[in-house]
Structure formats: structure tokens, C-alpha cells
């Protein structure tokens, strides 16, 4: 009992507690609405089910959000990821559509390499503006956010490029080892980033730069280079997400591809407990945040609510999660609880109501 008492605040105080609670609540609501929701079945050696779909659809968001996490950890922000998604998808699809044989693996790989290269250049551009010229990140990336969309439309000539390439479609809807390829890819990138940042000093260095760039520079860290790198990684992640999104629908739309993904990604990062001020980052939290957002979207679709009206729910959940995590809100809440000395149960109910509202 006593250990439970002491451990309870440790659990509820954990930064991932409320996001996970909301995620579980959402899943439970879905399961009640449609009991078959939780079912996962094997068909032709592939896993199928709503849960698998949610993870598969959240794969691009996870990727973008991972890159965003690193950028935010350095104290920056990258608004241009949506445009990078559009550009990378457009470049890849344009190249494939110009090939005589769209199914040839070689030309698909060339297309991917070209699109990836262009995206790295875009990331380098962002990084140079922020780290070398010293422009405020939000504006520096705003430039590419606006211009990149135009660039993507320029590449596709304002058309929607449709392709018919099996190897390319594989990225979006293919399966590897019973799992959808997108999930495997997202998992691989997540692990790679996690190992690179948490098993080496890189993660600490990134946090040092985000905490205080000048101090980290004086401590011998090449702060500029780290910042530059963060934007390049972010663009690279966005490029891969762009492949997934365009492969999902086998077409590239310069206008609509990756629209608002930057906002979703930033939300995922914030829900995951990473502060927009920089200096700390939680990759696991980001993944949970991305899953939460996709679950919310999917459940709203499943319940036959207008996709646009889904934004209403998103707004509620975002504010609820951010409020619950905000130190100022917690402090006010704690003070009130101390004053009334009441049991925690009703206040817990209030929180749930907020989330459910």
C-alpha cells in the first residue's frame, strides 16, 4: 500500500502518463464503438486490422516528427517539412513517370536518390539560414514552407502526377515479414535515431546546444554544425515520409501532399513531452504523440464524423494534453488540491471530462 502511494505520483507524474492514458481511452472508445476494432488477423502471411492500419498510417508522421524532435531539441523549429514532403514526392514521381518502364527497380532507386538529394539540399538551406546566417528558425523555415509548396507545384507543373510503379508502391502499401513495409521503415529509422542519439554522446550534445548554444560552443561543441545537421536530418526524414505518402496513393500532388503535416508533427513532439524551448527531447514520447494523433484521426473517420470536424476534437485533445502537461497548470492544480485537501478522484474525473469533451 505504502509503496503504491509513493509510486502513484511517480507514475502519474511521468511525462508520458497523460498521453498514454488518452491513447488508451481513445482505443477503448473505438473498441466499444466497434468491437472488431482490436482484432488483428493474418491474411496471406500479412497482418491486417485496424490497429495495424493506424500504425501504418502514422508511419510518415512518426518520421517527420522524429526529425522535428531533433530540430526542436536544438531550440529551433522546422515549418518546412510539409513542403519538403511535397517536393520529395514530386521529384520521385516525376522521374518515375518519365521512365519507359516504371516497374524497373533501378529507375525507382534513382528516383528515390534524386528526391532524397534534393531534400537534403533543402535541409541544408534551412540549416544554413538558421545556423550560419543566424535567422530565427520559425522565419527561416517559413520561407521554404511558402516557397517549397510553389517549388513542388513547379516540379509537377501544377498537375497531379500519377505513376504505376510496383516497387515504388511497395514503400507505402507493401509488406515485409508480415508487417507493412512502412511500419518496418518507421521502426528502423526510429531505432537508428535512438541509437545514434542515446547510445552515443550526440543526443547529449544536441540537448546542450538547445539548452544554451553559446555555452555549448564555449564547452567545445560545434553548435553551428549540430544545428545544421538537425535541419538536414529533419529534411531527410520528411523526404522518406514524402515517399510513403505519395506511394500510398501512387501519385504526387504538389498542392496537397503533406499539407499541415508540420503542424501535426509539432503537436506530436509537444504531446510527447519535448518542450518547444529546446534543450530536452524524448523520442519515445514523440512516437506516442504521433500514434495518438493518428488514432484520433482514424477513430473520427471510423465514427463517421466529417474529417474537417475532426479538427474540433483534435483541438480539444491538444489543449487538454498540453494543459495537463504545463507546469503552470499543474502548479495551480496542486495548490488547489492542497487547499481543499480533497481526494484526487473527482479532479481526475474533471481531467477526463476535459479530454472527452
Amino acid at each position: 500500500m505504502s509503496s503504491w502511494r509513493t509510486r502513484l505520483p511517480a507514475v502519474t507524474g511521468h511525462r508520458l502518463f497523460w498521453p498514454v492514458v488518452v491513447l488508451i481511452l481513445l482505443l477503448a472508445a473505438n473498441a466499444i464503438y466497434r468491437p472488431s476494432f482490436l482484432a488483428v488477423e493474418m491474411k496471406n502471411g500479412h497482418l491486417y486490422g485496424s490497429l495495424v492500419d493506424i500504425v501504418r498510417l502514422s508511419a510518415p508522421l512518426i518520421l517527420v516528427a522524429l526529425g522535428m524532435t531533433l530540430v526542436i531539441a536544438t531550440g529551433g523549429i522546422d515549418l518546412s517539412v510539409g513542403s519538403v514532403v511535397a517536393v520529395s514526392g514530386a521529384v520521385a514521381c516525376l522521374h518515375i513517370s518519365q521512365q519507359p518502364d516504371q516497374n524497373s527497380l533501378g529507375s525507382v532507386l534513382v528516383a528515390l536518390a534524386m528526391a532524397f538529394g534534393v531534400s537534403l539540399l533543402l535541409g541544408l538551406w534551412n540549416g544554413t539560414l538558421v545556423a550560419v546566417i543566424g535567422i530565427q528558425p520559425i522565419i527561416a523555415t517559413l520561407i521554404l514552407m511558402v516557397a517549397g509548396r510553389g517549388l513542388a507545384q513547379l516540379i509537377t507543373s501544377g498537375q497531379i502526377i500519377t505513376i504505376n510503379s510496383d516497387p515504388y508502391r511497395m514503400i507505402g502499401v507493401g509488406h515485409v515479414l508480415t508487417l507493412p513495409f512502412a511500419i518496418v521503415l518507421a521502426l528502423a529509422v526510429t531505432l537508428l535515431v535512438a541509437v545514434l542519439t542515446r547510445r552515443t554522446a550526440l543526443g547529449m550534445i544536441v540537448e546542450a546546444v538547445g539548452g544554451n548554444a553559446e555555452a555549448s560552443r564555449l564547452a567545445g561543441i560545434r553548435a553551428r554544425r549540430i544545428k545544421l545537421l538537425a535541419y538536414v536530418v529533419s529534411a531527410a526524414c520528411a523526404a522518406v515520409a514524402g515517399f510513403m505518402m505519395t506511394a500510398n496513393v501512387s501519385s504526387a500532388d504538389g498542392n496537397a501532399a503533406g499539407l499541415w503535416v508540420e503542424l501535426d508533427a509539432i503537436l506530436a513532439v509537444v504531446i510527447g513531452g519535448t518542450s518547444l524551448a529546446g534543450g530536452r527531447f524524448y523520442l519515445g514520447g514523440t512516437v506516442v504523440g504521433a500514434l495518438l494523433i493518428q488514432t484520433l484521426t482514424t477513430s473520427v473517420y471510423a465514427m463517421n464524423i466529417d474529417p474537417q470536424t475532426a479538427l474540433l476534437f483534435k483541438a480539444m485533445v491538444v489543449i487538454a494534453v498540453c494543459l495537463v502537461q504545463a507546469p503552470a497548470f499543474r502548479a495551480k492544480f496542486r495548490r488547489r488540491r492542497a487547499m481543499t485537501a480533497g481526494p484526487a478522484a473527482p479532479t481526475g474525473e474533471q481531467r477526463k471530462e476535459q479530454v472527452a469533451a
Partner: protein
Amino acid sequence: MSTSQLAERLNRTTRWRLPRRQLPVLVSLALLLVMYGIGVSQYQAFSNIQVVFNVFIDNGFLLVVAVGMTFVILTGGIDLSVGSVVAMTAMVSAALLRDGLPPALVLLIALLIGPTLGFVMGCIIHFFEIQPFIVTLAGMFFARGLCTWISSSSIPITDGFWTSAAQERIRIGDNFLTVGVLITVVVVAVAAYTLAYTRLGRNVYAIGGNPQSALLMGLPVGRTRIAVYTISGLCSAIGGILLSFYTLSGAPLIAVGMELDAIAAVVIGGTLLTGGAGYVLGTMLGVLVLGVIQTLITFDGTLNSWWTKIVIGGLLFAFIVLQRLLGFRKKSFSTR
């Protein structure tokens, strides 16, 4: 060094600082004139005064929204919800008019919703210390969701007051302006006066310059911060009304991405995104620059609409680099 020399030096620095502060606005003005000049030299019809009036008519609502955004950005914040609030206001008015409410009441309700949302967002930002970016992002989702909740398709406005306001032409010689432009001009004038000559305006600049010292000086930081988001909400609501005059309908997906145009206009107008420096006049010039770009591209006919975005991106880049070169920076970007 004698005192007179010192005084002279001091004089020189102050004399230097003044245009330095206003230089971005002057550059915007020069840019606007150059672009207009290009238009006039390339296309005969461009020299028609009506072209200038049309820029105002077509961008009046953006101008009003950008003015509200200027207040928020001057305090160092940002408001992403403006586009959605514009759409929501137009949508609510269209829906209420369809239901037969008197226009005066509809106007009142429509003008109240925006500021209320802004007030709530401001309170959350101030009291719970959540970043404006996130809070106004949620506000953006909320307002946009509300639009579709009201109706998933466009609602036409047939009300007599609205149509007469939309179709009223104010003749000036051979050319005309709309009622919307007059409202826009009034809003710009009131906003410019508020920022330059009232206590609220001073507080806005002070908080944008340094919130810590503003607080230590005893300025009402919280009240001002909540006020600017409310003002931005009000401007968006007025923008929404103007848009409903302009299109005579409410559509759930109208004004998507308008917040970006507004922010771009504010930046091109020479306002620092870190806050503390900028003018409503600059914002007006920024909106006009965007408007003239669009007009130029329309006149050309061979350029596609995406060039607008690329040019706006290029201009944003040019202005931000200019601000850097002028040494306008508040926080140390500290990566040397």
C-alpha cells in the same frame, strides 16, 4: 574629447538610429514602388488607378487580418488561428442570415466570436504558460472544425444589407471603391493610432522588446498579452465580415493558409518576428506588395499561380537577410 564633440556624436547616433529603425519600412515602400513601376512599364492598363483600388478591394480582408497579426507579433507572439477565425466568422454570419436573424444582430454576434476565442487563447497562453504557437494552432483547428460543423458546403448570403454592402460602389472620378475598403482604412488608422499614441501601444512595444523588463517596470504584461490576442481575434472577425461582403457566402474551406500570408505581409512590412519593432504602416505596405505581385502575375498571364508562392518566399528571404544585415536582433542568436 570635449562635451560638444560628445554631444555631436550622440546627436549623430540618434540621427542615425531613426532611419535605421524605419529602414525596413522604407525598403518595403521602395520595393512596392519598383514593382508598381515594372507593372506600369510593361502593361498599359496597369497605370489605371483602378488597378491600385482593386489591390485594396481584393486584399482588404488580408490587410485587416495582418494588422491584428502585427499586434501579436510585436509582443513576440504568433497567432496561427486567424485564417480559420476569418472563415468561421463568414460561416457563422452566413448560417445565421440563412436562418433569418436580423443583420444587425448577426453582425454583433459575428464580431463577438473572434475576440472571444482570441481572449480565451490569450488567457491560456498567459496563465498556463503554453507556447502561443501551440495554443493558436489548437485555436486554428477548433475554428476550422467549427466551420465544417456548421455546414460542410458553402452557404450563399442573400440578405439585403449584405448584398447592398457588397455591391455598393463609392465613385471617385471614373473609379470606385467598395465599403470594405473604407472599413479597412478605418481599421488601419485606428490600429496605427493605438500602437503609436496610446498606453496599450507602448506596452505592446515594451513587452515585445523585453517581457522581463516590462514586468519589472510594472507594466501590465498579462493584460496586454491577452489584449493583443483579443485584438487579433477582433481583426480576424472584421476580416471575416469583409470576406463575406466580398464573396457573399460562407465556405468552410475559405481562407486556408491565410495566416501564412498575414505573417509574410507583416515580415515584408519590416516587423521583427521576435517582437518589439515594426509599424502598422509597414504591414500595409507588405500586404500591398503581396497584392501587386498577384496583380502582376495575373496581368502577365503566362506565369502560373505557384510563382506567387516562390516570389513571396524569395521576398521573405530578402527581407529577413536585410533585417539581419541591419543588425536588428534582440536575442543573441549566439552561434558564432
